[in-house]
Structures are given as structure tokens and as C-alpha cells.
């Protein structure tokens, strides 16, 4: 049967996602948020989620709607501050102890996700050594420098945004849209891409930016 990872609806894309899922959401600097899928996840009401996203709340992302709807019990991110002057929905829940937070340096965050997809259970990094984020972490010296041990992040679900897909799930990204998306797709058991166009004919081999091997479902959302 021809490989064809395209699905007809957001509901179909999210079929089988369970409460308690670890959800990796791409997006950074205003580009690459899979907002159609995030909105569908909120409507679905899947709860008790661990949200792995560079920003807990970003003004271009709908992850804050998941948080506001009370569906998220834990956040792993590098930035948890709202843009608005008051407290963000995340900050309101966090100050009341109703949501757990793990903050990582952004490079560690990216590398931990990459490690999750690459079969590396843990790695050492210099980032964060000598800071509060090193608390409770193993410190080890290699050469003349100290490093922190960081463990891989593995997700049940990745929601990423791309530009063009083909039926094999190969993806291209527009400009800075890729950011955390490729790594997140590799690190999740179920990786779903929302794309502008999903085509029958293959993306030329040299233009593919993420192999369809890492992508399970593709949803066309236009845009």
C-alpha cells in the first residue's frame, strides 16, 4: 500500500492521544507554532499533560489556552514569563502550586529533545553550571571544565508546524519555522505536522528538511 501519512482532520490527527501525555510543541520567535493542532488538543480536552515548549506562554502560540483550560500539570521550557504586564495564566497557576515547572537553558532544552530522538539517554553540557539551575544535578569535570549531566526528553506526542509535506511525511520549513520542530518530531512516539500544503509528489530529495521517517501524521491547514 502506498505510504500516505495525510489525515483529513485535526480530530483524526489526534486520535489515540491519552490523558497524561507528554506533548512537545514547536515554535520560537513567532514562527513554527502548530496552533491548529494545539487548539484541537484543547477542544479534545486531553488532560494532565506535560507541556514541553520553549516558552510556557508565547504571544504567537496557543499553548497558553491549554494551560488556561487546566489541561497542563507540568511545563518544561526555557522561558516561563508572560509578555503582558500582569501575571499570565501560567504564572497564576504556578504561583498557586497547581502546575509544576522545569526550566532549562534553551540549548539544553533543544539538546535534551534531540537526545531523546537520537537514543542518547543523557549528556553533559557546560550551560547552567554554577547557576541555580544546576541544583540537584550531577556535576562532572572533563578536561579543565565542569559540566552538568542532563537527561533526554521523550514525548508521547509532538505537534509541529511545517510548510510543505509529501505523502511520505517528508517536510520542508519556511525560513525560521523549523526551530524545535525537527528535533521534537524525532523525540515523540507520535509526531504530527500541520502544513500549508501536503502533496502527492515527493519533495525533491535535496529539499527535504526532515525525513518522513520521523513524521507519523500530516494535517493540511493552509496559511
Amino acid at each position, binding site marked *: 500500500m502506498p505510504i500516505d501519512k495525510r489525515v483529513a482532520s485535526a480530530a483524526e490527527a489526534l486520535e489515540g492521544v491519552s490523558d497524561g501525555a507528554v506533548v512537545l510543541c514547536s515554535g*520560537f*520567535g*513567532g*514562527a*513554527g507554532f502548530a496552533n491548529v493542532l494545539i487548539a484541537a488538543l484543547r477542544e479534545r480536552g486531553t488532560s494532565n499533560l506535560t507541556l514541553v515548549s*520553549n516558552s*510556557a506562554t508565547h504571544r*504567537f502560540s496557543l499553548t497558553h489556552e491549554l494551560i488556561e483550560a487546566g489541561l497542563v500539570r507540568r511545563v518544561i521550557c*526555557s*522561558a*516561563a*514569563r*508572560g509578555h503582558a504586564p500582569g*501575571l*499570565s495564566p*501560567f*504564572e497564576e497557576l*504556578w*504561583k498557586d502550586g497547581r502546575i509544576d*515547572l522545569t*526550566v*532549562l*537553558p*534553551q*540549548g*539544553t532544552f*533543544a*539538546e535534551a*529533545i*534531540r537526545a531523546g530522538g537520537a537514543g542518547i539517554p543523557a549528556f553533559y*553540557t*557546560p*550551560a*547552567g*553550571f*554554577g*547557576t*541555580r*539551575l544546576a541544583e540537584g544535578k550531577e556535576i562532572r569535570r572533563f578536561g579543565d571544565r565542569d559540566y552538568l549531566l542532563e537527561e533526554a526528553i521523550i514525548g508521547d506526542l509532538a505537534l509541529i508546524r511545517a510548510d510543505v509535506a509529501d505523502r511520505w511525511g517528508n517536510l520542508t*520549513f*519556511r*525560513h*525560521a*519555522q*523549523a*526551530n*524545535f*520542530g*525537527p*528535533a521534537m518530531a524525532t523525540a515523540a512516539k507520535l509526531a504530527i505536522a500541520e502544513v500549508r500544503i501536503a502533496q502527492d509528489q515527493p519533495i525533491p530529495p535535496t529539499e527535504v528538511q526532515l525525513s518522513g521517517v520521523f513524521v507519523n501524521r500530516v494535517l493540511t491547514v493552509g496559511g
Partner: protein
Amino acid sequence: MRPLNRLQMAWRAAQDIEDGMVVNLGIGMPVACGDYIRPGLEVVIQAENGVIGAGPLADQAHADSDLVDAGSRRITLAPGATIIDSTASFAMIRGGHIDATVLGAFEVAANGDLANWDMRIPNKGPLVGGAMDLAACARQVWIIMEFNTRKGAPRLRERCLLPLTAPGCVRRIFTDVAVVHVTPRGFLVTELLPGLTQDELQARADAKLQFAPECRPLTAPAIALPE
């Protein structure tokens, strides 16, 4: 002479950027350095969202919501640019391939410790972003910040009071009233605002300042702040 304004501080930092350097410019004042790189130099500006070779801001006609820097600003690409993903971007940063990063800061200590991520505002979520990777791993860390806080407290300190971003990383500090290098023997002032005495500057710092024998006047062209 009046202290440098924020754009003048960015201008002054930009004068230290050398030909061919790969530089990462932090959100806020640092990113303005890109506008003031000395004429005739070619520099690669890295944005940690993966843009390698960021150009000037896009005009309205060319602005693209997918072509952004780490601060969500709609930018252009410089000739020779490419875009990589976040994992590759931080591999580049952590691997020591960034010649200099220019960052903002709350405090810098005489041993080079940097505090620029946590002002301890109650209930505001932490915002680390890429600062710890950049501070720990760029070949040089340069800071742009006012010499004192708005309330007059010293930002150059014997030890940082605020939580650290990285220990012992800062090499140069570009402030509104002085340029300060961080040396194995502590702070060394290399440029001082005309009209300010060494004693006056020392009084505004929490750590011992040394003054370079060749300490020069800190000057910058007039640059108006945007409204």
C-alpha cells in the same frame, strides 16, 4: 558630557566587533549593535533561533512572519545567510563557534560572573532562554548595560547579588559612562565619560575599579532614541 543613551551604548559596543566575526546579539539593546558595525566590515550575525547571517529589519513590504529573529522581529537575511534548526543553532553556540555574544545584564562581578536572567520579581515565571548557553560558551561575552540601576545601585559588584547566568564569563562591559574590561585582576576601566572623574566612577561601583594607563574618553556620535 551626557551619559551615552541606549543606542549610543550599542554603537560603542559595535565598534569592538571585528572583521569576519560571528556574533550573537541579545534581545533589547544588544541587537541594535547590528546597525552600527563599522563600515567595510563583514560580520555574521547569529540569532539563536537558527538564523545564521541576520540582516537589517525588514520593511513593511518584505516583512514575513516566518523570517524572524529570537526576539520575534521581522528581519531580512544577509548575503551568505542560511537558517538551521534550534538544535543545530545551540550546537553552534555551545561548541564555541560564536566569536562574541553581546548581552544585556543586571549585574557583573569583578570575577566575570554574570547575572542577567532573574530579577526576583515575585510570581513572574523564570526566563532563561539562550542566555546561559551563550554566556557559558561564546568565545567572548560582552555586556551592554547602564553603569547603575535606575535607583542608583551599582551593577558592577564584587559579587553578584542576583542569581548567576554563568560564572566568570564576561570580558567587556559597555555602559553609559565607561567601558570596562574584566581581567584576571578584576575590573579595568579603559574608557571614561569626559567630565566624570575616576573617583566619581569608583563611588558608583561596588567593586574596586582599576584604570588603564591609556584610559581614553568615552565618546559616541549623536544618535536619537526612537520616540
